[in-house]
């Protein structure tokens, strides 16, 4: 029998399950998340949650694949003109506020960087936690810039910028129902904004858990998957922007 076990190739540093490696131990609910039997296995949880996120992102991708194929089909369709009874193209290229959208893109890319710094910050915290828990050992004051807060602020900045872009489009006479092309601009940007807002809710959740003194390993999982999700959202935005600008 050949084996097909893609999930076992990653070394699990914290299993301690006699090699069984795929069983989450039943938590006793207490504990500080380290050492001893019955404590949650965070390394395994992290891997599993990342896998879940990857699969979840596939479904997000399929949602936008659906929108994209609708965009391409609708863009190429001729439509019947009732006055002349001939087929004409009714696709009006939307005049996007490119400068504003470029600023927004910049904001989102910077937020992706701060998000990555937040992810690395908490990863370092998790790595250092066992050392720091030894009585009498101090690693000095960790410089802890609030990268998560910065990411949320930049994300809010991006969403505000998108709102301004919609206002600008409206000023130029492009409303949701003006033409199919403007419908798609609003649809794609709004769908992306909703997904990004979902990411911000997760970040806020991470901030709340830090107040609730959840173990840093548990918080790290939230920040880690939020980070990958956030990077995906940045990529998705660049894709949407390129589609709307270059295939209009």
């Amino acid at each position, binding site marked *: *029998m050949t*084996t097909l076990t893609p999930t076992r190739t990653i070394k699990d540093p914290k299993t301690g399950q006699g090699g069984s490696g*795929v*069983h989450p131990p*039943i938590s006793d609910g207490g504990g500080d998340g380290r050492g001893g039997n019955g404590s949650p296995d965070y390394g395994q949880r992290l891997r*599993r949650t990342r896998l*879940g996120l990857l699969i979840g992102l596939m479904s997000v*991708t*399929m949602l936008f694949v659906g929108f994209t194929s609708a965009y391409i089909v609708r863009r190429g369709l001729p439509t019947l003109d009732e006055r002349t009874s001939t087929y004409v193209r009714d696709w009006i290229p939307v005049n996007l506020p490119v400068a504003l959208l470029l600023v927004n893109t910049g904001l989102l890319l910077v937020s992706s960087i701060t998000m990555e710094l937040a992810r690395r910050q908490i990863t370092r915290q998790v790595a250092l936690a066992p050392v720091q828990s030894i009585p009498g050992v101090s690693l000095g004051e960790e410089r802890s810039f609030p990268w998560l807060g910065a990411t949320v602020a930049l994300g809010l900045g991006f969403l505000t910028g998108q709102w301004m872009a919609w206002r600008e489009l409206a000023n130029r006479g492009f409303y949701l129902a003006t033409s199919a092309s403007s419908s798609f601009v609003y649809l794609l940007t709004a769908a992306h904004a909703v997904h990004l807002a979902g990411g911000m809710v997760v970040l806020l959740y991470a901030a709340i858990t830090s107040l609730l003194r959840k173990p840093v390993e548990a918080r790290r999982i939230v920040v880690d998957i939020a980070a990958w999700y956030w990077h995906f959202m940045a990529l998705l935005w660049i894709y949407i922007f390129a589609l709307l600008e270059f295939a209009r």
Partner: protein
Amino acid sequence: MATGEIIHAHAAPQGFIRKYVFSLDHKVIGLQYYFLALIAVFVGMALSLLMRIHMIWPTAVLPLVGEIKPETYLSLLTMHGTIMVFFVLTTAPQSGFGNYFLPIQIGAPDMAFPVLNMLSYWTTFVAFVILIAAFFVPGGAPLHGWTGYAPLSALPTAGPGQQLGADLWITSIAIFCIASLMGALNFITTTLDLRAKGMTMMRMPLTCWAWFITAILGLLAFGVLLSAGILLLLDRNLGTSFYVPLVVVNGQVMGHKGGSPLLWQHLFWFFGHPEVYIAILPSMGVTSQLLSTFSRKPIFGYRAMVYALMAIGLLGFMVWGHHMFMSGMSPYSAFAFSIMTMAIGVPSAIKTFNWLGTLRKGRVRFHTPMLFAIGFVSLFVSGGLSGPFLAQPVLDIPLHDTAFVVGHFHLIMGVASIFGIFGATYYWFPKMFGRMMNETLGKIHFFVTLVGTYSIFMPMHYLGMAGQTRRYSQFTEVAYMQRLIPLNTFITFAAFITIAVQFVFLFNLFWSMFKGPKASDNPWEATTVEWTTTTPPPHDNFGGKTPVVNHGPYEYSVPGAPRDYIMQTDPATVKAH
């Protein structure tokens, strides 16, 4: 995704609400899905009975519903299809049995993300409530069929049910999509990451393979349906023109312009065809499991079965156009879709061949679950054989939208899949409830249902070839259809009898739950991991132990073994093939 405590870290809950309502236990959630589907299937069945009655007595005044007007008939048809496809065929075999038995069969204590699992059930529940609510709003339920073709579905002025009813319909479908995506995510992660030691992918029971591949299909298909649904909602409520061209309704020009009704059909069927396999693959998995168990033989060609499942899943995404041969598509694309569709016959034939190979020279034990598995093979063959007919544009054009198509897809997607659900129910009932179901009632249920469903759906092929169309509410006055009335009457009476015998099943189910004889841990002498644990399984499935798998899933009649079967968790020293 938003919680830190996502992964199985919950102790057995105590209160009623945490234990039975908002439970995180995959077994409770599986049963919740199952009972939701059970309610849905009886609602859907009642609607179909009303349609059958209306077909032969179009002017009859029925209790509760009164006289069935054409628009009522169309809303019955829409709701029957939607309820059956989404809330029965998608919900019971995948979300119901999959939730309950996937973790146990791979030796895991729970699904990968229990909170997400609970959310996914309750989201499904909300979707069902919203769908049923469509009956009770002004104008009633929508008329556009389960496929919701635009522009009918996109214009609130197009008919009585097309106002609020259609909005509720599409909202319900969109919510169902989100629930299914969450479920699919959970199934895939669980299968990839939570397998017990020794449970390699190629040692998984074929049920697990089927649930896994179905989850992948769901993950890729429901996202597209969601996008299509959002566009439809925008067209209906915010005046966009994705699907609606310049239309005149009742002499009034609508505000839309330039949209394409075909766009909806493409997006819908890109989901819709994989959905057919989402409905049938889990039942294929169950059938493989049952045929092997009750023939006391290893499944014939395990690997071929796995690869055939994969091939069916893959091809399922490339054939959506065969639903649209009538839409005026280019003959070249129609040809391509036609070839791909007929190619699905190859993996389907491999599966059928292997099922028959499993039965051959087996020491068959004809328990009720086995009968339903054999019934599945029979229905799969007779329903499947009309597939290659419809796959050819030249034949599909006259047969499209006739009763022929209704007969075809009810046999293969509806009844075959339901037979898988019945087989699974009779097979796993002892594990789920700790008691056995009544065999005599089960056999009565099987034989009447088998003969009954054939009597209902086989004649529909003839009706279709004779020209009976699909969605017309009334045809008894049409001259050329006069001669079809006796056959239609026969079908309606067959439906009466078949539906009546489902109450025998219902009685058996609930009676056995409380009064059936106690079941042992492994009443069928089966090999897979769920039969190693106690009946019913404890909260963490294995009572604190973690199973270790040493054998393949179907080691029956092994020469030299002490019993005629080797369980997957038996020590490796037991000789296998």
